[in-house]
């Protein structure tokens, strides 16, 4: 479990807190979506949940973030990687550049952890299967599409067997095919029991897979709960996140006096279809 305890953080040269007084728990195995406008604190949330704050970014932190009851700030940064994985926006920059095939690339993290070769073999094979990359295992990661490269990053993390995997806008640079591939791979990792914290804008995908959504605005949690409820909230628009067009048309129809006033607004296609018929 990850727990934020009255956690605040300010970047070294910043005038204001990027996160202020966050208190929340993310239980083991949960798929938690973090949404908010750009600048609302999504990336900072990801860095705090993975220990990059305070180990990589200096700045000023108050309160604590704990993993299974132990403050991340007190953990040794090098060994944290074995417990919390993180995947970033740009797939290309996550390739180590020091290995020649996808299989070896996944091995890179395991070598750093000192995993024995036999064990490595098992873990890599499983990771390749979960993210559906078995076919390209012997190719150079540089030759792959963005979606495939991002799945290499996912597999590299998964093979390290972290309890928690944090993803900071993992599909924002990808085309629709890549986005679909990556969301499916993330869902598979979630199925396998990994706790997922995913910051992003793609509500339609998040609504399909996430168990919970946290809405951030100016470094504060302004809503926390069921994704379908949160994503349909009027507040989403007010804080610059925007809703799916399914929600927008349903809300407009309601405003125009059509349809049941008290029905929950839809977020996904299936819900919208039910709503309008």
């Amino acid at each position, binding site marked *: 479990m990850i727990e934020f305890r009255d956690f605040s953080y300010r970047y070294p040269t910043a005038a204001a807190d990027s996160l202020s007084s966050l208190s929340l728990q993310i239980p083991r195995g949960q798929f938690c979506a973090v949404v908010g*406008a*750009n*600048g609302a604190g999504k990336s900072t949330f990801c860095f705090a949940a993975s220990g990059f704050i305070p180990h990589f970014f200096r700045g000023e932190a108050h309160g604590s973030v704990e993993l299974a009851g132990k403050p991340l700030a007190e953990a040794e940064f090098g060994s944290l990687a074995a417990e919390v994985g993180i995947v970033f*926006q740009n797939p290309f920059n996550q390739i180590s550049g020091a290995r020649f095939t996808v299989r070896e690339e996944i091995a890179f993290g395991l070598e750093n952890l000192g995993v024995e070769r036999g064990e490595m073999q098992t873990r890599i094979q499983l990771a390749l299967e979960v993210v559906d990359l078995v076919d390209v295992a012997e190719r150079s990661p540089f030759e792959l*599409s*963005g979606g495939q490269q991002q799945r290499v990053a996912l597999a590299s993390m998964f093979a390290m067997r972290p309890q928690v995997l944090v993803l900071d*806008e993992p599909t*924002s*640079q*990808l*085309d*629709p*095919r*890549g986005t*679909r591939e990556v969301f499916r791979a993330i869902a598979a990792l979630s199925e396998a029991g990994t706790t997922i914290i995913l910051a992003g*804008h793609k509500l*339609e995908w998040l609504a399909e897979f996430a168990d919970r959504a946290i809405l951030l605005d100016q470094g504060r949690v302004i809503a926390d709960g069921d994704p379908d409820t949160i994503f349909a909230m009027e507040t989403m*628009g007010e804080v*610059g*996140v*925007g809703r*799916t*067009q*399914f929600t*927008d*048309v349903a809300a*407009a*129809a309601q405003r*125009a006096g*059509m349809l049941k006033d008290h029905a929950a607004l839809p977020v996904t*296609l299936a819900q*919208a*279809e039910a709503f*309008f*018929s």
Partner: protein
Amino acid sequence: MNIDIRSVSFRYPSGQLALDNVSLSISKGETLALIGENGAGKTTLVKQMNALLRPTNGRVDVGEWDVAEHSTAQMARRVSFLFQNPDDQLFARRVWDEVAFGPRNLSLSEPEIEQRVNRALDRVGLLDKAESHPYDLQYTDRKLIALAATLAMEAPILVLDEPTIGQDARQRERVASILQELAAQHRTILLVSHDLDFCARTAERVVVMAEGRILADGPTEQVLAENEILDQAAVIAPQLMRLSQALKLSPPKLRVDDFVDAYASRKARPT
């Protein structure tokens, strides 16, 4: 000023055929979205329009200019380009100078440059940050600086490569309204984007590409309803198109207001 692309093929030095006999005519004032997955040839195609790449076969005309006879710098007067990643072009220490770079290359008068830069910065909402260092701003603001730099060229044709990537709802809204304004001024806009919901509401015409060929070309509502073609191009139809289809709303409606109106009139109709 029309764009006329006639039987253009393009082969990279590596031997890869990126464009295979592509023909496309774009009239002045059109807003056209070019969609398809990465590697489909979209960027290769738009780069033919300002001579960044020159066709292996075929010919491109922009207005009465044969692009083959002009340099990219010359083409900049007619075709203004926004690249996907702002960090591939920002170099100045002041936002203002960054936006002024293009107009200065056009050898405009100082007052004219000043006007254009202020107008462009105002349009993207960054006038109050004109004195900042671009790299002191967020990535999303840097993206808007690059857009302002493109606007300041005031070219009749704009090519925008993924203008909404990584942007949130508010910024997408801003970009959409800028596009509307440009369209009202009869500028030609070529939008290269994976953001189909955005394309659906801003473009009147859509061209679908796959493997260096054009699979479909026509009015937005019509092209985005072609499920098989979108499937072949590995793109996913915009949300309102999928909802229109699910509710058998015909013709489909891709803007929220249109959708609600159409739905209301259908409900009012006795069945």
